[in-house]
């Protein structure tokens, strides 16, 4: 499998461990990642709030780069996945398409609308397949209870994202099961992490994040796992502040999706950049430690 790799901004900067883990896992699964240094930011939902057509045009340029190379796109961020998918959908509106085309044409860019955008979670569950993944597991995450945390834009609006239920998805939990972990079902798994308003009203954003972490914990989760680096910022990077906002210490490690898969496929914590997390993952990794590789 060959895919145009769209890492997004955060995985190239403060969330580099996500990029490391993605590359490791894709190599192990023989997924060839083709990099394009010309990809620009997806707009993260913020450009969309300020200028919808500009946001669509920037993403049409990204989609056109992959189209020209004849590749579908791989995202590793719920928000990138949402924004790129949304661009494909909004381009169906002739008024939007007209303005976007007019901006791209002088630059010699033409987007014909053929690029499919897939998140790593979809590629692993739909294209690689859970059985094939299971066959590669060398260190089952037995005994580790993990609360999946999806990130809004990977799921909703469900009629536009069109791959999973917007409120009752299962893909991530099935994947966790395939790598030997025990998925934890809790309401917060499809809720918001608070990130979009972290700058506007931190105390509210942190209360929202805290509610979801508390919920996962109350349902017995040893750790959480997310397919979105922005959720990871809210849940892990800011977890000390979140603890303050909810008035008690949370101390829940939060994995990136490919880190969970990487651990099961035999990667070392170093290869997955686990030391870069703000909340230590040591206790969670120790739980599966007895089955650690030589």
């Amino acid at each position, binding site marked *: 499998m060959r895919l145009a790799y769209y890492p997004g*901004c*955060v995985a*190239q*900067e*403060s969330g*580099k461990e996500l990029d490391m883990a993605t590359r490791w896992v894709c190599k192990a699964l023989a997924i060839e990642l083709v990099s394009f*240094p*010309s*990809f*620009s*930011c997806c*707009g*993260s*939902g*913020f*450009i*969309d*709030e*300020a*200028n*919808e*057509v*500009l946001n669509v*045009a*920037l993403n049409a*340029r990204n989609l056109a780069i992959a189209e020209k190379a004849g590749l579908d796109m791989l995202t590793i961020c719920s928000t990138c996945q949402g924004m790129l998918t949304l661009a494909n959908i909004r381009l169906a509106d002739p008024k939007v398409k007209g*303005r976007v085309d*007019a*901006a791209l044409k*002088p*630059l010699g*860019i033409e987007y014909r609308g053929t690029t499919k955008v897939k998140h790593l979670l979809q590629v692993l569950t739909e294209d690689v397949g859970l059985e094939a993944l299971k066959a590669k597991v060398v260190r089952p995450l037995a005994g580790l209870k993990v609360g999946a945390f999806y990130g*809004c*834009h990977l799921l*909703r*609006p469900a009629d536009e994202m069109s791959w999973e239920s*917007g*409120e*009752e998805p299962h893909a991530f939990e099935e994947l966790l099961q395939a790598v030997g972990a025990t998925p934890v079902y809790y*309401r917060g798994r499809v*809720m*918001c992490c*608070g990130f*979009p*308003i972290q*700058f*506007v*009203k931190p105390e*509210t954003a942190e*209360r*929202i994040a805290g*509610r979801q972490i508390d919920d996962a914990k109350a349902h017995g989760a040893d750790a959480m796992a997310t397919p979105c680096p922005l959720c990871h910022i809210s849940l892990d*990077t*800011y977890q*000390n*502040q979140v603890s303050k906002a909810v008035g008690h210490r949370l101390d829940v490690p939060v994995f990136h999706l490919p880190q969970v898969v990487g651990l099961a496929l035999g990667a070392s914590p170093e290869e997955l950049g686990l*030391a*870069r*997390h*703000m909340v230590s993952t040591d206790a969670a990794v120790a739980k599966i430690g007895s089955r650690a590789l030589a």
Partner: protein
Amino acid sequence: MAAAEEKLTKFTEESLVTVPFDVYRYDPAKGGEPRYQRYELRLAPHTPVLTGLLRIRDEIDPTLTLRYSCRSAICGSCAMLVNSKSRLACRTPVGPEVQAHGRIVIDPMRNQPILRDLVVDQQPFWTRYEQMEPHLILDPSKPMPADTPTRMSPAQVERFRDTPRCIACGACYSACPAVEADPGFPGPMALAKLYRFVVDPRDSATQGRLKKIQTSGLWLCLRCHLCTEACPKDVRPSERIRDLKELAVQAQGGTELGSRHAIGFLNNIEERGTLNELKLVRQTAGVGGVLGALPQGLRIWRKKPEITKAPPPIEGIDQVKKIYQALEDKKEGQE
């Protein structure tokens, strides 16, 4: 005739499913703790949840208290939680719920005080709706002619999108995490209603409405789209809230933290095509904000030292800049 009748009965018998309902029960007048009561019915899979609940009330337990009227998704009275999802009970069939969950757990809506069983106090929802001034505000110097209808072009009508379809059921309000976390947030329905008046060509208060909402909750929407998922009428409040934000930014610039952040982000990407995380904090929060965030920043920097370095520009940054030039309409207040 008899044969046909037999066939019909047989078909019905075979297609019935056992539906275990676990219904939230609480009567503050009687005191005690809320509890779930189990009722089991045999129902056809397409039976609406509401029909099941009314059968429970009529045939098993007359004390069950719930709101409903039209039974056909018109009046907006019967919103409640069906297996944790905010739904109209009269529009949600039992079959898929039983198939997915093995039972149907019924709770009152979230984010509103519970009066009894499935009935909530909707006053907070209505108060926020009224705060939107949900009526036309006309320019007194241009009164509408009394006897002639005001004409609108198809394009003008199109701008309302699906907002006039709202039946004020409150399902979106119940589903909204911003309502849950912040009393200052008006909620999805109120904002969708505001949008409906902001785009009404007869309304004269558009700018005032936008200005007011910018400081009273607009920028607290998380764009989580849970409201759009819950809405039985496809009003899509989250998308109309996005529209309100863009209208506010375009007309009024970066006057609030929220709009400043959106514009700051937009300008940030124009420079390099990729996000300069540190600069974004400075753009939105200002120097004071950066100083306040310093201890946290240092903590993060120890684990993720690259946060202080600006990333290199992407290849083809000139293309990005030209796209900005073609589509950006810079306004006062923007950098």
